[in-house]
């Protein structure tokens, strides 16, 4: 049953199961991303959307399964992967400026123990420019609005100059200007032949912003091009039934493991 993993596919997930505290949150995920697409991961709260990308990136422990990038392991493909974490995952009262944060995206190019050189700062400024934030480069990050902070994170990912991007809820709680800026960046990335996988919560904008969609609720309900997969029926399957049987099974496993 294993799908053919090709070197073209920027991301191939095979039989991936993820568990927290022995409680499975993602079951047996199989997925192959087509290159050069904007892909949305959609599903109800607690469906494991963030967990899915965290497991791909090695941030959440995989109970089983494999993940490959262009047919290679994560370790080998790492330099081609960029990441935008959830905005709430960090303390924004950290003593750095917007530009300092963006330059973190250059660190792996700079290497160990060397300071951020002028050319890397220039590159960082350019990335801020692309999200419309150049004028705020010197601003301490706690003094930025939520949307501006999100754009700083996006600029940092741009500074990574990756070929495959994972973005965790970049549209959550942002203003209209930021939403436009993010969409522009997504389109620009696509035009450069890159692939972007975005955890998304707003169903209405899926067809407008994305080419492909993964409907997720503890397992992949459906995946493919938005035109074919983003249907009433599939959405009902994803959001409607709540999949009580699956979550009951997960509870039972957690109880059994805890009692053992």
């Amino acid at each position, binding site marked *: 049953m294993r799908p053919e993993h090709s070197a073209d596919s920027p991301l191939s997930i095979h039989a991936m199961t993820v568990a927290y*505290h022995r409680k499975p949150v993602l079951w047996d995920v199989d997925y192959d991303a087509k290159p050069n697409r904007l892909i949305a991961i959609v599903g109800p709260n607690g469906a494991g959307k963030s967990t899915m990308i*965290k497991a791909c*990136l*090695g*941030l959440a422990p995989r109970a089983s399964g494999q993940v490959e990038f262009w047919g290679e392991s994560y370790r080998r493909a*790492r*330099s081609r*992967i960029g*990441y935008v*974490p959830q905005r709430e*995952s*960090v*303390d924004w009262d*950290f*003593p*750095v*400026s917007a530009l*300092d*944060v963006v330059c*973190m*995206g250059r*660190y*792996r190019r*700079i290497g*160990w*123990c*060397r*300071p*951020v050189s002028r050319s890397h700062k220039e590159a960082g400024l350019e990335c801020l420019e692309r999200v419309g934030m150049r004028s705020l480069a010197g601003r*301490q990050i*706690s003094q930025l609005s939520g949307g501006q902070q999100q754009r700083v994170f996006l600029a*940092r990912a741009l500074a*990574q100059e990756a070929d495959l991007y*994972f973005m965790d809820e970049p549209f959550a*709680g942002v203003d*209209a*200007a930021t939403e436009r800026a993010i969409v522009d960046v997504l389109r620009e990335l696509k035009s450069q032949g890159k692939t972007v996988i975005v955890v998304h919560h707003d169903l209405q904008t899926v067809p407008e912003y994305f080419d492909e969609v993964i409907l997720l609720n503890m397992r992949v309900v459906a995946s493919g091009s938005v035109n074919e997969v983003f249907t009433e029926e599939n959405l009902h399957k994803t959001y409607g039934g709540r999949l009580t049987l699956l979550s009951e099974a997960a509870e039972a496993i957690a109880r059994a493991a805890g009692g053992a």
Partner: protein
Amino acid sequence: MEFLSFFIPTIAANGHSHGGGSLTDVSDEWPTWSEIFETMALRAGHNTNTVILGTVMLGIAAGVVGVFALLRKRSLMTDALSHATLPGIALAFLVAAALGAEGRSLPVLLVGATLSGALGVVCIQAIIRFTRLREDAAIGIVLSVFFGAGIVGLSYIQANAASGAAGLNKFIYGQTAAMGRGDAILMACIAALAVVAALVLLKEFAIVCFNDAFAKVDGWPVSLIDLAMMSLVVVVTVAGLQAVGLILVVAMLIIPSVAARFWTDRLWLLVVLAALIGGASGYFGSVVSALLPRKPAGAVIVLTAGAIFAISLVFAPQRGALASLVRRVRLRIRFAGEHLLEFAYERGGAELSEADITSVARLRAWPFWMRPIVVRSILRRGQAVRSANALLLTDEGLERGARISRNHKLWEQYLTSYADIAPSHVDWSVDQVEHVLSDELIAELEAQLAARGIVVPAPTGERAAR
């Protein structure tokens, strides 16, 4: 052999101050100005200078290392770490004695301290990882259990060891005055290590402290970098044990960086300031305790750092309590003035009588002191002039009132018609937000409301101009 000199019992170390009076006589001889000056200028003799320099170096090291403990949110963990060193000290003493070696040898004791401190940290991590307990509970458990075990060990040694073991007590409260030349050099080396590590690895420490998940995805060995930061903390803690004691050493790690944070938003400057504050605390603390021998230096060092923290907390220009109080009061007074203008505009007249002001004050629940200040502030802004009745709004004041009034309506409309998405902004209370809406935001509100067919009329020119 120099180490042995530290192990004279605590009473003996403090004994020379007991010569003049009874045990209940707690007053110190007040030093003369020349004594103070001599000590501060490092001219009070070799031994005093050694202690001062050693503590300054310890302060610098702890300040630098503490920045990263603070930013990594490990401040409390360092407290557990320092308490967890005690059983190691006791155990090292017993093991060395059982093997026939000199149990009170400082290197042996410090190795024991390091190992059990590290074990304490590992226990905390294990509790977090394998149970559902959170970090605070894990730290509480490890800190108290390890410290308790250490106390048990010490009392066992006290009761059973043939040779006096009272010297071990100094690790709890510290004994700065006993610092020798070798210790001062050791402190200097540790300070140099901390400074060099901060210089060379600033970028790596920063990315892990700010966003470890991103650092990991980016390919940085987060555990290794964490280990480096934690090792620095361990080294400084263990080095500080005999100087300030394990109860207070955590203060030298935490307070300088927290105090420095009030003064800067830049990481490298934070490190520099924390080093300076740590060094200064060490300097003043040891000078004071050299002048007043009864005062335990460790506590004085920590109190000095605490005083610097208190000053920073109150007086720092941006983040200080005073500055933010002034900002809040100013804003409140501006809002109150604008409420007056809004009131006048909505009633349709430029006159504001004393009674009008009273009614606004009552409606808005102004405290008694605010009224004259508010009136003065709108006079100063040129939004009103004094008149026979009370106040007469200028054109500028009326225009501002009109704008505030409209903003209020816009925002209310927005909140009610976009009840589904607005909750993310409802924490801006309607009464405040009308004063701070930017022009872009107003344009956006208008556009969004227009999309739903709602138009809030612009203020009429004639009315605004009376």
